């Protein structure tokens, strides 16, 4: 295992070391100590390595991640795993705003709560949140899945496209064009898998599904704003 002291050795050295790992690296396991809320930790990774961040992170931890597994043993600042392509990012604590924003693939697991705009504009990522999500979550979400084991805040799924949203608790209010949808067997199966990957013990049958009413897909007199 490689250990990197971020406070002592700096951000550039860390990301350069992590980004230079290739598919056949032997240095598959990394531990980052003293993260102290730094921004842009472990961004742009492109190899199947495991990175454990021993503490909380600032903005954009694991941004644009590909293939890597990144575990934050603390809480994560805004935009964690933004635009992730593949791999797994797990936050042991809470996540701030825009968690998983625009993610194209991979899995983001948040063991605590997520703040506002969780899963904004997602394009294929799977996000599993053990706690609650804040307002405007899944805004303009295009595809992928957002699972919320707690409650969702205001304007949930506003202007949503084809992403699927599952919530176990309450939804404070639904955003424009977001509606509750029938939970069919295929959704139960999908959700079972998501919950398992997210390490949640909730039962898929306890969730409700939300998605697009598809009423904003074409400009009309009443929605041309």
């Amino acid at each position, binding site marked *: 295992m490689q250990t990197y002291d971020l406070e002592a050795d700096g951000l550039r050295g860390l990301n350069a070391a992590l980004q230079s790992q290739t598919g056949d690296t032997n240095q598959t396991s990394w531990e980052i100590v003293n993260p102290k809320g730094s921004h842009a930790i472990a961004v742009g990774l492109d190899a199947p390595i495991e990175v454990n961040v021993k503490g909380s992170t600032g903005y954009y931890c694991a941004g644009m991640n590909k293939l890597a597994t990144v575990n934050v043993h603390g809480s994560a600042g805004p*935009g964690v795993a933004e635009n992730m392509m593949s791999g797994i990012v797990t936050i042991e604590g809470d996540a701030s705003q825009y968690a998983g924003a625009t993610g194209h693939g991979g899995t983001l697991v948040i063991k605590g709560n997520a703040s506002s705009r969780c899963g904004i504009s997602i394009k294929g990522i799977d996000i599993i949140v053990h706690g609650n999500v804040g307002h405007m979550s899944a805004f303009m979400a295009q595809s992928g899945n957002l699972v919320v084991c707690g409650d969702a805040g205001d304007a949930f799924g506003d202007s949503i496209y084809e992403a699927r949203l599952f919530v176990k608790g309450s939804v404070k209010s639904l955003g424009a064009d977001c509606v509750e949808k029938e939970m069919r067997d295929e959704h139960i199966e999908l959700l079972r898998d998501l919950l398992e990957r997210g390490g949640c013990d909730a039962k898929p049958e306890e969730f409700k599904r939300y998605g697009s009413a598809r009423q904003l897909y074409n400009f009309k*007199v009443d929605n041309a704003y």
Partner: protein
Amino acid sequence: MRTEGNTGVKTRNENGPPKTAPIQSATFSNSINAEIRRAAATGLYDIRGGGAKRRVPQFDDLLFLGASVSRYPLEGYRERCDTNVTLGTRYAKKPIVLDIPITIAGMSFGALSGPAKEALGRGASAAGTSTTTGDGGMTPEERGHSEKLVYQYLPSRYGMNPDDLRKADAIEIVVGQGAKPGGGGMLLGQKISDRVAEMRNLPTGIDQRSACRHPDWTGPDDLEIKILELREIMAWEKPIYVKVGGTRPYYDTALAVKAGADVVVLDGMQGGTAATQDVFIEHVGLPTLACIRPAVQALQDLGVHREVQLVVSGGIRTGADVAKAMALGADAVAIGTAALIALGDNDPKWEEEYQKLGTTTGAYDDWHEGQDPAGITTQDPVLQARLNPIEAGQRLRNYLNVMTLEAQTIARACGHNHLHNLEPEDLCALTMEAAAMARVPLAGTDWWPGKSGTGF
């Protein structure tokens, strides 16, 4: 003349008072009235492409003084007058080196056809300059045909991925566009072909609107961290541009610099767009001419003029425009609409087809409908096959060469051996408005409105 049947009664005019000619209202003009009727019939606002069509103070309102006794000129064809520019010298390990200071602005695949994007890449590369992607991601065609490609990082993040990021020669974070500062993109269903839909991860055929705000940052302090992240992902190699629409150019430029931009791209209200509301295009934003001096002032106040490069766009058409923008302090310019016209947009040879679409050469702006006779702003396979990307690329190269030669002609006449040596002192203004906006003297005077130390 009114005749009253065949009763033999004389027309009113002969005995009555003299008739006056009908007078059209300047307020309720026929075109305004037609728009009111159109709105009343459809209940929808008008969407179109292009930039502001109204007249605003612009580069034609400025003149160069040229050399005389007090300054001497350079020989027209022989003496050296350089045109090269390097963008991204502030932080990037690999700045972009261009032969000419005229770049091709960001225009999306989706808004433009594949052959049009290819032609832009070919023409720009042949002329020694860069092209830019747009909303919708990077296509292999444009990467392949563009020697230097700037990859836009937009609010929608359609097609955004780290592999293309690493393939790009520079990144342009788009905050806004001159045609619609404060608005996002639009691409109507007619143009969301299967390929466009797949690149954007959207259902085919929907009317797509792009977000107007970035999803994961708000404000200049966040932007600084976002730029840090992008630099870390790209190992501090590639320049990062920040593109803003012309609204508050002094503060936007200053904040972009503070956030860490290598290059500021400033797009005035005449700047084209692929599609947005007409009301937005015509009524929001500052004329390009009014943007440049405040932006340059911001760079100077921060001590980074020339270190952080300023690229100006919005209504650049000729070498004279290029020279004027540079004399006011820009390091380079970008063109969108003019490049499309060089490729063949609004060409009179399609007049018959423009007529069928209810328009005419020069006025065709329904680019969002995807029926462009010239095959440029369309995804229709039959129409886009009309554009030969090799020939269109050659036309663009020729046009870029002509603009460069024109700008050099002016620079030499003013006695400069590099386009960057053009300065505001080379200029005068024909109107009070232009004098005030460009902060150069009204022709024949040494005064402009707002000049410090004067009474106004």
